[in-house]
């Protein structure tokens, strides 16, 4: 997964490390399905972050296998199916831990950049 800002390209490694945190954070606010997650990331980052769409689903399935999120199928009135993901208790703890790690990392980097 990588993202592209309007003017610069963030490295894949940088975004890969934060992908789980982003997904858990979004799913933690409300249950979402895959396509909705892609749109929300793009919307909330004002276009700076765009998932390579196909790699989202392995990440979601991995988080589900780890027990951090739980998927369920829902059928819409028009017959379409969507798989919604919601955060589990384990996922909530994982999100808090990842968010703390991210904030510490960001603060440390900022300290070095400020000199």
């Amino acid at each position, binding site marked *: 997964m990588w993202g592209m800002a309007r003017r610069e390209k963030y490295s894949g490694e940088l975004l890969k490390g934060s992908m789980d945190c982003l997904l858990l954070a979004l799913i933690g606010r409300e249950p979402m*399905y*895959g*396509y909705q997650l892609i749109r929300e990331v793009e919307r909330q980052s004002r276009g700076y972050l765009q998932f*390579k*769409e*196909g*790699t989202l*689903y*392995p*990440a979601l*399935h*991995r988080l589900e*296998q780890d027990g951090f999120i739980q998927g369920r*199928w829902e*059928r819409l009135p*028009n*017959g*379409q*199916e*969507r*798989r919604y993901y919601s955060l589990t208790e384990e996922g909530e703890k994982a999100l808090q831990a990842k968010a703390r790690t991210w904030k510490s990392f960001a603060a440390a980097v900022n300290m070095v950049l400020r000199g």
Partner: protein
Amino acid sequence: MEVVRRSSEHGLEGIRAASKNGRRGMSLELDRFLQHLRASLHLDAADAEPVLREINAHLEDRVADLQAQGFDRASAERLAIERFGDVRQVAREMCEAHQRPTWREALLAACPHGLVVLFFALGLSRNFPLLALAFAAITVVTFLFWRRGRPQWIYPWAGYSLFPLLVVLRLAVREVPNGFDSWLDAETSLQTGAETVALAVLFPLSWWAVVRVILEAARRDWLLASLMMLPMAVLSGWLLLLAPYGGYLWASPEDVAQFDPLMARMMLAVAVVVAVFFRFGARLLRFALLCGVALVSLAIINPIAEPGTGPAGLALRAVVLLGLLASPALLLLLLDGGPGSLWPPRGQSSGRAPA
């Protein structure tokens, strides 16, 4: 509308039926993409079908959004597929997300190796009736679960089931200097015409059975098929050890038993490696693990069995051994044009939007 909930072999039909009856039909472009994805996914049927359903729903949503932006259906589908990304990368990552069996499944995979460890550790390797019974039991378990969706842990069991067939093949061929040669010395060669005829009949049947099973396994996942080959490689080393003493059938019980402790330790290492194999994610790393344990076995066994073998001879044996482990992938290359996870099968698109 009913979504057809079947195994992944029928999963695409179910998705097509669902899409046809839903608000959008599945186009040829999307269908080809999903077929390619299905061919690249090396998952159990129960895991692959919901993955395909979910990705189909995603693509339909993307196509609908693009159409709302003014694209025609064909262009929207091409763009949706392009934005989705390389199907092989997606399949690879999905496999790594899913192919992390539980420790229970890893232990089940190690079970047949553990049984062989017991045989050697208890000095039962010369107890031919018990050995035959064990192989028969392994074969029955293999047959039952091979027909029930082929869980990943059954592949090592299948390897042991194939070993007797390879023995038949080697007996019939009567060539290639290895552990089978000593069965064929002047005093022990098959004398009766009936036995010769039986071997002549069994030879093509055994070849057919072995190649068919390997190919079937490889088409599902060449890596699991390589795992299936591992017992054959290591047990062939045991027969190599027995070669100077007349081979398994004609060596004295004491000559056979002297290698039991070594083989018990070696098979224990194989059992541990197989259990760990199932917990690794990266495919090449898992293949390297198989090659590593096979080469270590060769390095231990060959100097004992044939002390006069030089580096060239040892290197040749290593190449043959690695060739045996890679034979499922090589068979796919020869017959199908390549393992699905490495490059697209013949006649299917790359998953990228056409130029």
